[in-house]
C-alpha cells in the first residue's frame, strides 16, 4: 500500500492510494489561495481598479512585464484572469487512476483538471448532495470568473519568471508556473457527468478488489468519509468531518473504527476560533451595523454554512427588532441552492428530518422566501435584486476571496462608508489579504470565521477513539503545536506517516491472504485431522476460478484437461515410530526387518528385499531395490505409524 500526496493545502486535500493494484484518488481539492495574488475582476467596470498605477520592479526594464503588475496601497497584484492551484499532475498519471472518491463538495473543485483531457478512464463516486452542491459551486465559480467585466485581460505570464525581483507576498507564491486558469464550462459539464451517485452506507464494489463505503461525516449536506474494505484490510479516509450539531446528518464514527490505516485531512483552518462564538459575534455585529443604518455584506459560498447563517441571523434580527431588514442572496445558483436544500430530507439532522414528516421544509429559509423576507437573485442587475433593493440590508454573495463575483462590486460601492460592514465567515482566505486590493477601506471589517470541521483537540479525541493501526496526515497537522514540551498537533500511539505535496509513502500492512469461496461439494470431501488442539488440517487440491477478482475453489473433476496431475501435498508431522514400523511391516508380510540404531536416527534393513529405510528426525529415506509391491507395502506401513494430515 502506498499513499501519494498531491496537494499542499491540507484543507483542499488530494491523495492517491495504491492498493491491491488499484489507484484510488481520495478527493481532488482545488487550492484557490493563488487568486489572492490577482487583481479583483469587477462585474461592473471599476474606474478605481482600472486606474491603479503600474508596478515595475526597481532596476529592471523588461518590456514583457509591461502592464502585468499593478500596485495598491503598497501591495503588488497581477492584473490578469485569476489562476488556481490544481493538484500536482507529475507524480501520478491521471489516465491510470481507477477510482476517485469525493468526500464533500468543498474537496472536488479540481475534478475537471483530473478527468478532462488527461485520458482518465476511471469512475468517480460522490453522494448526491455532493454532486449537486458541488455543481452549484463550480458553476458559480465559472460564471463569476468568465462573466467579469475585465475578463478580456490576457493571461499574464512574464511575472512568473521574475519572482525573485518581486516584493512579498508575490515573491513567495508557491510554484506559480503550475497554476492554471479555470476550465471551460463544457469540460466542467463533462467532468460532472462522470460522477456516479452513492448513498451513505452503500457498498460500492471497486473492480471486485474492495468495497468502498461513504459514511456520514457531519460536516455539510452529503459530506462523507470513505471506508475501503477488503476481507482482511480496512482503510478509513476522514476528510472534512464535524462532531458539532449543525444541519447535516451527524458523523458516523462506528464505521471508521479499527482501520489498518486512517488518513486524516481537512481539519479546521481556524483552530483558534470557536464557530459557536463566531456565529454569536456575527449576529451582534450585524445587528449593530443595521441599527446604525449601515448594510452588511457577507462574502459566502452559495451553500453550506449559508443555511445556518440564514436561520440564525433571521432569528436574531427578529429578536433585535430588525425583522423588516431584507436579506438578499446573490448568486447565479441562489434559487437552485435554496430550493435544493429543502428536498434533501434524507441527508439532514434528525431534528430537521422530523419536520419533513409533518410535512414542512427542513430549513426555515423556504418560509423566509415565502414571506418575502429573503430574496434571491442571479446577479446584481437582476430585476429581483435591483428593483426592490432597500438599505439597510444584509447581502450574502460570493466570492469569499473578493476577487470576482458580486461581492467585488459591493465592496467597491460601500468601501468608503464607515456605516457599512463586511463580515467574513468563510475560513478559506485570510481576510486581510482578501481586502488588500480595496484599501484604503472605511467600511468596518469583521472576521468571524465559521469552520465546523474538527479542531485539533476534537481530531485527537477522534483518533484515540478510532484506534487505527497506522495514521497518515499532511505535514501541517504533524507540526509541533504550542506548549512545552512541543507536541505535534495530532498525535497517535500508532505509527504516523507524514505526507507532503509530491511525496509518496509506503504504509499499511503487507497482505498475506485473500478471500475466496469454497464450494460445499469440495468442503464435504476433505476430512481434516487434528494437528494439535484447536487446529485441524487436510491436504486440498481444488479447481481455482478467478472471475471479477472473486476467487472460488471448486471440486476438480478427475482427469480434466490441462489439470496438473499432481496430488495435494501431504504434511508429515514427525518421524515414524520405528518399533511400530517393524510391526506394521510384519502385518504387511515383510517380516525380516533388522533395526540398527545410530546417533541421529536408525536404519531399518530388509535384506530379503534389498531395501534400507533411513529414519532421521526430519526425513525418512527409503532406498528400495525391490519390486513395486514391496515399496507400496512400505509406504502403507510408514503412513500407518507416523502422524500426518
Amino acid at each position, binding site marked *: 500500500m502506498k499513499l501519494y500526496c498531491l496537494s499542499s493545502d491540507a484543507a483542499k486535500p488530494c491523495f492517491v492510494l495504491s492498493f491491491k493494484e488499484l489507484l484510488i484518488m481520495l478527493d481532488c481539492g482545488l487550492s484557490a489561495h493563488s487568486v489572492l495574488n490577482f487583481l479583483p475582476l469587477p462585474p461592473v467596470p471599476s474606474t478605481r481598479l482600472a486606474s491603479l498605477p503600474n508596478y515595475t520592479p526597481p532596476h529592471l526594464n523588461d518590456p514583457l512585464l509591461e502592464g502585468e503588475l499593478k500596485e495598491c496601497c503598497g501591495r503588488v497584484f497581477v492584473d490578469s484572469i485569476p489562476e488556481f492551484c490544481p493538484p500536482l499532475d507529475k507524480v501520478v498519471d491521471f489516465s491510470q487512476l481507477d477510482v476517485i472518491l469525493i468526500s464533500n463538495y468543498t474537496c472536488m473543485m479540481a475534478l475537471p483538471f483530473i478527468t478532462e483531457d488527461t485520458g482518465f478512464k476511471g469512475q468517480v463516486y460522490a453522494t448526491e448532495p455532493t454532486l449537486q452542491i458541488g455543481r452549484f459551486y463550480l458553476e458559480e465559480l465559472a460564471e463569476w470568473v468568465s462573466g467579469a467585466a475585465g475578463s478580456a485581460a490576457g493571461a499574464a505570464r512574464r511575472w512568473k519568471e521574475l519572482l525573485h525581483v518581486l516584493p512579498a507576498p508575490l515573491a513567495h507564491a508557491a510554484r506559480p508556473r503550475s497554476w492554471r486558469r479555470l476550465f471551460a464550462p463544457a469540460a466542467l459539464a463533462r467532468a460532472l457527468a462522470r460522477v456516479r451517485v452513492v448513498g451513505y452506507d452503500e457498498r460500492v464494489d471497486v473492480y471486485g478488489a474492495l468495497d468502498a463505503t461513504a459514511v456520514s461525516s457531519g460536516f455539510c449536506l452529503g459530506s462523507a468519509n470513505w471506508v475501503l474494505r477488503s476481507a482482511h484490510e480496512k482503510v478509513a479516509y476522514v476528510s472534512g468531518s464535524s462532531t458539532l450539531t449543525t444541519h447535516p446528518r451527524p458523523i458516523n464514527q462506528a464505521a471508521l473504527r479499527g482501520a489498518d490505516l486512517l488518513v486524516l485531512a481537512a481539519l479546521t483552518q481556524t483552530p483558534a476560533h470557536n464557530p459557536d462564538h463566531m456565529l454569536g459575534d456575527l449576529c451582534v455585529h450585524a445587528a449593530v451595523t443595521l441599527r446604525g443604518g449601515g448594510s452588511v455584506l457577507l462574502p459566502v459560498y452559495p451553500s453550506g454554512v449559508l443555511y445556518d447563517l440564514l436561520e440564525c441571523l433571521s432569528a436574531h434580527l427578529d429578536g433585535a427588532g430588525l425583522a423588516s431588514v431584507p436579506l438578499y442572496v446573490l448568486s447565479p445558483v441562489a434559487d437552485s441552492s435554496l430550493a435544493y436544500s429543502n428536498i434533501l430530507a434524507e441527508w439532514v439532522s434528525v431534528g430537521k428530518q422530523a419536520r419533513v414528516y409533518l410535512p414542512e421544509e427542513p430549513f426555515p429559509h423556504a418560509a423566509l422566501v415565502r414571506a418575502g423576507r429573503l430574496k434571491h437573485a442571479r446577479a446584481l442587475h437582476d430585476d429581483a435584486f435591483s428593483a426592490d433593493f432597500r438599505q439597510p440590508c444584509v447581502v450574502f454573495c460570493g466570492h469569499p476571496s473578493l476577487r470576482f463575483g458580486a461581492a467585488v462590486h459591493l465592496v467597491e460601492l460601500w468601501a468608503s462608508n464607515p456605516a457599512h460592514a463586511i463580515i467574513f465567515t468563510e475560513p478559506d482566505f485570510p481576510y486581510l489579504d482578501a481586502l488588500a486590493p480595496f484599501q484604503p477601506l472605511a467600511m468596518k471589517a469583521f472576521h468571524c470565521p465559521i469552520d465546523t470541521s474538527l479542531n485539533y483537540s476534537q481530531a485527537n479525541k477522534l483518533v484515540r477513539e478510532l484506534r487505527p493501526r497506522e495514521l497518515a496526515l499532511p505535514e501541517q497537522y504533524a507540526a509541533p503545536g504550542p506548549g512545552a514540551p512541543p507536541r505535534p498537533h495530532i498525535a497517535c500511539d500508532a505509527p504516523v506517516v507524514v505526507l507532503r505535496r509530491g511525496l509518496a509513502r509506503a504504509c499499511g500492512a503487507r497482505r498475506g491472504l485473500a478471500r475466496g469461496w469454497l464450494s460445499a461439494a469440495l468442503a464435504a470431501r476433505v476430512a481434516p485431522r487434528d494437528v494439535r488442539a484447536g487446529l485441524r488440517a487436510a491436504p486440498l487440491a481444488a479447481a481455482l476460478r478467478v472471475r471479477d477478482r472473486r476467487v472460488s475453489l471448486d471440486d476438480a473433476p478427475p482427469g480434466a484437461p490441462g489439470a496438473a496431475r499432481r496430488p*495435494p501435498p501431504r504434511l508429515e508431522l514427525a518421524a515414524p515410530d520405528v518399533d511400530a514400523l517393524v510391526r506394521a511391516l510384519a502385518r504387511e508380510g515383510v517380516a525380516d526387518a533388522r533395526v540398527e540404531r545410530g546417533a541421529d536416527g536408525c536404519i531399518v534393513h530388509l535384506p530379503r528385499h534389498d531395501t534400507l529405510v533411513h529414519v532421521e528426525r526430519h526425513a525418512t529415506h527409503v532406498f528400495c531395490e525391490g519390486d513395486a509391491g514391496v515399496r507400496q507395502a512400505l509406504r502403507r506401513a510408514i503412513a500407518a505409524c507416523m502422524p500426518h494430515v
Partner: protein
Amino acid sequence: MPDIKITPLGAGQDVGRSCILLSMGGKNIMLDCGMHMGYNDERRFPDFSYIVSEGPITSQIDCVIISHFHLDHCGALPYMSEMVGYTGPIYMTHPTKAIAPILLEDMRKVAVERKGESNFFTSQMIKDCIKKVTAVTLHQSVMVDNELEIKAYYAGHVLGAAMFWIRVGSQSVVYTGDYNMTPDRHLGAAWIDKCRPDLLITESTYATTIRDSKRCRERDFLKKVHECVEKGGKVLIPVFALGRAQELCILLETYWERMNLKCPVYFALGLTEKANNYYKMFITWTNQKIRKTFVQRNMFDFKHIKPFDKSYIDNPGAMVVFATPGMLHAGLSLNIFKKWAPYEQNMVIMPGFCVQGTVGHKILNGAKKVEFENRQVVEVKMAVEYMSFSAHADAKGIMQLIQYCEPKNVLLVHGEAQKMEFLKDKIEKEFKINCYMPANGETCTINTPTKIPIDVSLRLLKAEAVRYNAQPPDPKRRRVVNGILCVRDNRLSLLDIDEMCDEIGINRHIIRFTSTVRFEDPGPAVKTAEKLKTLLSEKLEGWTITISEANISVESVLIKVEGDDDSTKNIYVSWTNQDEDLGSYILGLLQSMVQ
C-alpha cells in the same frame, strides 16, 4: 443450513394482505405486513398465530421489512406490533415512514368511525408503531445484526416504494414488493443491479397482461373523461390519496391546460395539499424530469384541481372528482358512487386493481346491482371503465426484472393462482430456473448451494498465477491450487505447505523413496540423461521437465544418471511421498525401457 424457507401468511396465490415469512441461515424475516381490503372480519389481517400460537412474536422474528405505504402491504403493522406484540426492528424508506401513518389513520377512521368496528388499533398505537421504524435510504446497506444485511432498491410503484435485497451469510433473497418497470409521469422505473440472489420473490399482479403503450392508455383515459364531461356527465375516479392520484392529476392538469377546459376538477379530502407536499419534499424519489424542473416549476402545484366538498355531490352539471379510497370499499368514493351510479350519463373510471369482495371488483365484473350491508341496493347504470393505471410490472416487466438480477429461483406472490401458473411456466421455460408459487400458509423450501468463505494464501495464488500465465493461453484450461486446508476457530484457510509449517511452528518430516535402474548404454552419462529426457517429454505431456547435466527433475522427482563413459549406467530415481504416483510411473517407465 443451506435451505431457504418461505411461508406466505398473505399474498400467496392472492392479492392483498401481503405478509411473507422468510427464514434462512437461522434468521426469520417478515416481508410486509398488510391487510386485506375485501374482508371485514379477522381474515382482514394475516394469521400471526402461525408464528406463535399466542403472545408476542418478537422472539421469533428478527426483522420486519415494509416495501411501500399501500395498506395491503403495511395495513396490519400497528396490529402486529402493538396488539399481537413485536418490539424488534422494522425497516422502511423515508417517504414510506412519512406517509404510511397518514393512510393508516385514514383507514382506522373509516373502520372505526364509519363502520363502528371495535377491537381495532388506535391512533396512539399507530404513532407508537411508527416510532419503532428505522428509515433507510436507497442502496444503503443496513446491518440488522452481525449476519443479516438488507439493502433497498428503487421500485417505482408509488412514492418511496422499494425492493429489498436480504442477505444472511452467502445466501441472498430479493423481495420486490410492488414495482413498475416503466417510468410514468411522476415516478421512475424500478432498477436493480445484477445481484444474482438465490431467490427472487416477485409480485405477479399482472402476470398474464402485456400492457399496450402508456401513451395509448393515457389518450384513452383523457378521451373518455372529455367525452363524458362534454355530455354533462359526472366522472368519478376512485383513487388512493397518494400514488396514482398524483399521476392522474398531472395528466388531467396538463390536458385541461392544453384544451382550455372549464369543467371543474375536484380532489376529495384535505389530504390533497398535504399529500402533494410530501411529493415536494421527497422530490428526489420522483422521476428525472420532475427532479430537473422542480426549481422553476413544481409539478405538484395544480392550478385546475380544487379541493372537494361533500355538498358538491348533488351539484348539477359536469365535473370530475378524484375520491378515496380506490377500490370503492368504503368512505367518500363509495358515497359518491351510490349517488351517481343510477344515472347513465355518469361514469366511473377504476384506475387500478380491485381485490375480491370490494364494490370495485363487483362492478368491474359487470354487476348491474350492488347490495350493501344495510340491504340497500344500488342499480349501476353509469358507465364503468377500467384503466390499468396501477403501476405494477406486467409480464414483460417481471421477465425483465428476472433478467436484470439473475436469480437462481423465483417465487411468485401477490397475484391470482391461474395467472401465476401461466407465468410460472413461462419463467421455467425461458430462464430454465425453478419457479414456486406457494399458497397462504404453505411452506416452500428452496435448497441453495452454499459457499464457505476461506482465506487463501496470496503466495499460493501468485505461484499458481505464474505457472498458469507461463503456459500458452487457453480459456478452457483448468486452474488448480494445491495446498493445506487449515481449520482454526471455525475459520478456514488454504496455505502453502511451507507457510503452514512456519506459521504453526512445526518441522515438516519428509519421506523420500529412491530406487535404482541399471541400464546398458555406452557413452557419457549426460547423453544418457538427454535420451531419458526425450523419452519423458513424450510420455509426460503437460509437466515441466528440467535437465542440468546428468540430473533430470520433474516436480520433486529427481533422476540421476551415474557411471563411466563405456559401462553400465546406474539411474537413480528418487521422489517424495507426495509424488508417489509420478515417481512410480517414471520408475516403471525406465524399468520397462531397460528390459
